């Protein structure tokens, strides 16, 4: 719960790691925008390519009539797309595609997470752009990648939770598939893409060459379960579903407490902690059973122990259970709901508060890392749709006022 920001010495005011790096961002929804937000945090100039005819729908999935904040950009759009510039280009129009090619010829990185084939149909594939800009790092983030038998499959976070085996390694034996209510796989895909881009930028400094990174979100998520896949491949059986248990600490689990849907976890890693647990429960007679005196026995009789522990925890609030266990030297933690985490500055230090619009405080995801010398971009807000269209076309590719007017008249900058 240590905030890295609070540790940052005042000297971390140097250049950002990606100062001067231009990112042309065609990505939408979450995995790609999460990646390009990290690039923006690291100091890249991220130009989000949008069109009023095809809006990024981020955040539209959770309409709330009572929301009082900014209406042009939903809160989750702001959270995901803060610190980026916005250009509007109607890519269905040929002149807009020509402008895009010129932008690509001076960009360092392109990120797109369309289905395989979409950028190719627009004439904006790696093979179209590489001749114009051999140093270009072109990152595609399709669900399954641009090759292979499933290249045309559509995918979303939940599909990846299902197809990577995650839902069947989570939970206990016999449970139905179990997921996390989070766009987990988008973050995993975005993190891998960001790592790949940083590495490609490093290599480019040596080779002068860019890269075509056809990252499959599916593979990124399967990688995070690499040990499970490897064990299954060698042993020919799916991995055991451990639920909340451990193979070397017992008892370990999540126990129901007296409040509605309140829970507390605990783990007993050695015999001292076991004695602490027994004392915290008031030395009940069941716990003196010889069978429970060492970890081997406790692992073997885990179900029976769990039932007895829960008979105790279910009489008490989770705060009380947590407090008594900790006092007895047993690692314990009550389950924090999102509200509990968010309302406690110590447990939500990664979420910063900014005002957008002025006078309206909102919470925004910051960075869980920082540097001793390099600066990070201060957390800001999301650009108004198309706010940077003209200025970027002037700065990146030197379009004149006449050229801009002509493009406006042709209706392609919308």
């Amino acid at each position, binding site marked *: 719960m240590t905030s*890295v920001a609070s540790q940052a010495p005042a000297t971390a005011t140097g250049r950002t790691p990606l100062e001067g790096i231009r990112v042309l961002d065609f990505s939408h929804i979450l995995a790609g925008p999460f990646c390009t937000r990290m690039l923006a945090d690291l100091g890249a100039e991220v130009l989000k390519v949008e069109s009023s005819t095809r809006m990024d729908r981020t955040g539209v999935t959770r309409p709330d009539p009572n929301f009082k904040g900014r209406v042009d950009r939903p809160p989750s759009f702001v959270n995901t797309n803060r610190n980026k510039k916005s250009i509007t280009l109607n890519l269905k129009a040929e002149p807009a595609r020509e402008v895009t090619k010129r932008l690509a010829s001076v960009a360092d990185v392109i990120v797109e997470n369309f289905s395989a084939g979409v950028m190719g149909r627009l004439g904006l594939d790696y093979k179209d752009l590489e001749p114009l800009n051999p140093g270009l790092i072109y990152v595609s983030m399709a669900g399954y990648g641009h090759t292979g038998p499933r290249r045309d499959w559509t995918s979303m976070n939940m599909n990846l939770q*299902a197809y990577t085996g995650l*839902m069947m390694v989570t939970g206990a034996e016999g449970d139905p598939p179990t997921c996390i209510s989070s766009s987990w796989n988008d*973050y995993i895909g975005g993190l891998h893409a960001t790592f790949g881009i940083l590495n490609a*930028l490093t290599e480019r400094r040596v080779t002068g060459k860019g890269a075509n990174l056809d990252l499959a979100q599916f593979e*990124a998520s399967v990688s995070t379960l690499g040990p499970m896949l490897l064990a*299954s491949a060698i042993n020919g059986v799916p991995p055991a579903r451990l639920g909340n248990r451990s193979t070397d600490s017992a008892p370990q689990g*999540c126990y129901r407490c007296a409040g509605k849907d309140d829970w507390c976890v605990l783990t007993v890693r050695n015999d001292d902690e076991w004695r602490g647990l027994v004392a915290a429960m008031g030395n009940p007679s069941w716990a003196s059973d010889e069978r429970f005196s060492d970890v081997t026995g406790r692992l073997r009789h885990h179900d029976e122990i769990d039932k007895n522990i829960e008979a105790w925890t279910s009489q008490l609030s989770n705060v009380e259970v947590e407090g008594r266990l900790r006092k007895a030297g047993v690692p314990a933690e009550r389950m924090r709901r999102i509200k509990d985490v968010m309302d406690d500055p110590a447990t939500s230090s990664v979420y910063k508060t900014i005002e957008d619009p002025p006078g309206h405080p909102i919470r925004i995801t910051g960075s869980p890392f920082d540097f001793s010398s390099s600066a990070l971009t201060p957390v800001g807000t999301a650009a108004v749709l198309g706010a940077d269209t003209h200025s970027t076309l002037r700065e990146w590719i030197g379009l004149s006022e006449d050229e801009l007017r002509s493009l406006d008249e042709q209706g392609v900058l919308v």
Partner: protein
Amino acid sequence: MSRVIDLTGLSAIYATRLLAEVGHDVIRVEPRSGDAIRRMGPYLGEKQDLEHGAFHQFLNAGKRSLTLDTSSPSGRRILDDLLQTADVVVANSPMPFDEAAITAANPRLVVTSVVDDSDPDICAYARSGLLSLTGHPDERPTLMGGRVYYAATGAFIGVATAAALLVAQQTGMGQTARVSVAECLQALFEQAMVTYASTGKSTERRGYRGAISAVSGAFPCADGYWMVSLSSSADNWHRFMDWMQDPVLAAEPELADEAERNAKRDYILDRIATWAGKHKKDELVAESQARHIPSAPVTTPLDLARDPQLIDRGFLQKVDHPEFGETLFPVGAIASLRGGKVAMAPSLGQHTIEILEELGYGPSDRRALLESGVV
């Protein structure tokens, strides 16, 4: 290629795995008795020893292993020598070496300092809020399986390290990258954060039903489970209705609106489950993909051991394993981008002599170190 000294624990070791995937020389420094990661099950095959843990075999693939007693003065001296030759070191804070002295002597060194209070993991997971999102409504919340949250924290640590390495290459100067594991865990529920901050509602665990959009779930079917996940658009709903041909749902045109679907979620999902129960998993998935409706089979990792997509893209690569024969090895998403191969994980101390030689320790020095148990 950079040299990376890997002193990580479980919350960061995925970072050094990523660094090995791009071809860096990653040296894992381990105690002579082997570390905790070598002791984590499941194991490959029958032998439950320091060489057969699945976490070790996957996460240490492509690295070299040096065993060192860093509590002894001569062990610490070897670590210092090693750090003089390195570009990156990743370890938990506080650093197990004199950071000021080392970086003064080797100013280009990137030090990734991991602030880690995530042991035991079940407590960190409960504290982070993620436990409240994992599991089935009203049922017991559960840890995610396969310690997958530590791969996520490791990926953040990999990103921070890669950024500092890029700067070091530009400027010739290293620095400290600081990463908080607790903040990485928090950062993994940011949509729930947005929902709470803008509506005051805590997102709760939703089991296998309706995780993000209204019509999204792992439904039982004739031979297992299949996952279908409609986006919030009306278009997706219409395509699904064309296929399902449910006269009751079709009679409610307002369900084209996501808010209406959310309001009637359980009712809709019950009807879908009943319908899907009559069909087989592969048929349902093939048909929905043909209709551009996102769906997937619910698999176990075993189902992926010979997955055609992973083989075709070089993620699973054939290796001739000394013990298990010809087998398909997961090289990792970053290695597969580069068509790269990844060497098998090293045995404990496999590269100790070789690394001591590289550091300039002669035969008699090495013998003395071995005899005194430092290496």
